[in-house]
């Protein structure tokens, strides 16, 4: 029995956060497509604004459909609550701006989604927030990068696209020794394969666009707080521990030591930066969440077979999938991802960029697009798309070669996927022989 719920993961994925609609008895989560909610009288309006009673006021701050998604992901992750955002990028931005302002510093894994690398490496410096990127496998690098102004550690459960496994317990220990929180982007693993809060992380974010939704129809993000980080004791986070004139002079850590981060993020971050999630998107992501445990099991089963198939193929130079024996993080994956190392993998084709192009263009089932985590199988060439802004040196450091191809293995019949890959590999091989 977990301390927070007697229910299992599969049950929570279907039910958490929602009781049947009391007015009409609707079993499915209703889509509350409204910008605002009527106050019963002027007194109630004032009380809601004063946070004397909880409730919904305006959809930029909270919405009943979005709240179901927030609670459900918080329950699945074992957190105290969550905030759904317009995208995964918005969740990352919301975390950062809640914890620091200009002058702040982040220590981040260098194996990140290209969009996150962009935000940290190029965009936030314009606002005075700087990041040191480190080798995620090197504990000393994390330790050595800490400065007096550091406010956050950040990494991905599975680094993109080399699939480095983040040693969350070790990195969390280093962060905590410096009184810093660790944010983990768990997009590629979902709470079905790993619950980073249980491994020591303090905050977890998802691009819900990916596996949580699983259907590729809705962009969204979710940010979950584990509620364990002691912001007051750290003494580094005045946004959470000093009165905020912008919201009733609230000292968020005094107001709620456990939910201080979420309070500030919602009452300032969502309110002022405005990257809220649409209730329609929340509904669509909830439909996907209902089948997340089933889908992740099937994704992992297919991905294991695909990885093994590619690793044995003469046209493939190497496969990056932590579920394979040869991956440098195989042992770590066995410990931190015992139910499977996800369904995204990358591999290096013999023949470089031209071989990569021939491979992708010969595929019929794998869709060539910039996304992962769809129920349908996907493929992309990172060097020319998701990571195109990175220098050759940064690409190499992140484990991306000219011929690196990233797959997101879907739920199609395995034989059909293998046949499609063989078709692409044959095209690549033909090219390299001519």
């Amino acid at each position: 029995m977990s301390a927070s719920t007697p229910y299992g993961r599969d049950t929570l994925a279907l039910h958490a956060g929602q009781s049947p609609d009391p007015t009409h008895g609707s079993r499915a989560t209703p889509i509350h497509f409204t910008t605002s909610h009527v106050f019963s009288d002027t007194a109630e309006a004032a009380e809601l604004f004063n946070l004397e009673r909880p409730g919904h006021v305006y959809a930029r701050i909270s919405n009943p459909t979005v709240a179901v998604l927030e609670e459900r992901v918080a329950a699945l992750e074992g957190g105290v609550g969550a905030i759904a955002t317009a995208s995964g990028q918005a969740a990352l931005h919301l975390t950062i701006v809640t914890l620091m302002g200009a002058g702040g510093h982040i220590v981040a894994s260098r194996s990140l989604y290209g969009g996150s690398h962009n935000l940290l490496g190029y965009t936030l410096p314009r606002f005075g927030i700087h990041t040191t990127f480190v080798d995620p496998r090197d504990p000393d690098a994390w330790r050595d990068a800490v400065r007096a102004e550091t406010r956050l550690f950040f990494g991905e459960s599975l680094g993109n696209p080399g699939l480095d496994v983040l040693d969350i317990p070790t990195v969390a220990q280093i962060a905590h020794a410096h009184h810093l929180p660790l944010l983990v982007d768990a997009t590629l693993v979902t709470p079905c394969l790993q619950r980073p809060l249980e491994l020591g992380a303090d905050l977890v974010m998802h691009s819900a666009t990916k596996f949580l939704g699983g259907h590729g129809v809705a962009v969204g993000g979710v940010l979950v707080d584990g509620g364990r980080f002691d912001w007051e004791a750290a003494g580094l986070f005045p946004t959470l521990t000093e009165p905020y004139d912008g919201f009733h002079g609230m000292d968020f850590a005094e107001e709620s030591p456990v939910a201080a981060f979420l309070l500030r993020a919602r009452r300032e971050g969502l309110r002022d930066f405005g990257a809220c999630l649409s209730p329609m998107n929340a509904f669509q992501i909830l439909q996907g969440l209902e089948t997340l445990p089933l889908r992740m099991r099937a994704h992992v089963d297919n991905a294991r077979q695909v990885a093994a198939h590619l690793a044995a193929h003469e046209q493939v130079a190497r496969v990056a999938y932590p579920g394979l024996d040869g991956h440098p993080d195989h042992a770590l994956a066995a410990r931190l991802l015992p139910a499977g190392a996800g369904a995204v993998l990358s591999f290096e084709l013999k023949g470089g960029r031209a071989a990569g192009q021939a491979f992708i263009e010969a595929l019929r089932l794998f869709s060539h697009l910039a996304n992962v985590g769809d129920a349908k199988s996907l493929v992309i060439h990172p060097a020319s798309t998701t990571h195109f802004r990175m220098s050759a040196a940064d690409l190499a450091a992140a484990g991306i070669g000219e011929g690196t191809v990233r797959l997101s293995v879907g739920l199609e019949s395995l034989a059909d996927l293998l046949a499609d890959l063989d078709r692409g590999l044959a095209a690549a091989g033909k090219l390299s022989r001519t």
Partner: protein
Amino acid sequence: MDLNVLGQPTRIYCGGRSFDRRLPAVVMIHGAGHDHSVWQYQARHLAHHGFAVLAPDLPGHGASAGEALTGIAALAEWIEALLDAAGVARAALVGHSMGSLVALACSARSPRISALVLVGSVAPMPVAAPLLDAARSQRARAHAMINQWSYVPTSHIGASACPGLWLPGLNAALMARQREGVLAADLAACNAYTDGLEAAARVGCPTLVVCGERDQMTPPRATRPLLDALARGGAAVRLHTLAGAGHAMMAEAPGALGDALRDFLGSTTG
């Protein structure tokens, strides 16, 4: 704000307003293994409607220093010391669960208490042996048991009144933040306090008993001896039942509890 109480730095939440001792004072006492934040909404509600709120972290809890006190009587004495430290002559007491026993004991001994609210309360308040054992040696198991019994079944599914908050997770994290030994000391104090009915018979101030309709820890039917004892002592007693709520009624029925507290305390301050 932070006050020094009996030589120990003590965290006191004032409901988001500056403490104004000219206003009627209300002390809100949390339960076992908790801190002031369980009263977040009700404290804000009272503080924004004419009351001077003092919601302390009891010694050794939350951000307050010191060791957890080991008996209800000691905690009741500490509440009087808190009033002294805050410069408050008279105050109403609101207590939840273990905090209700502290409020009861303090009201029975002190003429400074103007009104009493017992939230989720029974007297005596025996604690099941497996929970006492778990609190001593298996905290996570104790937290799971408390969560299981604190919330009504719908709360275990979710749909919390507080947008985006997963209440069972919030409560588990709050209990996990408390120092080692605090929960065990609190539960032992509840279990050992057998003077509740005698204390109730000595309470002279207006008293409100608030029950969660579906409370499994302190079920409504079990409050009868307490209500009878209060009546025997001559206190003007009211009973208020929160529809659909369990033991964690501050989170499960935040608005309804806030309204009940404000209505009652307003009636006692004229």
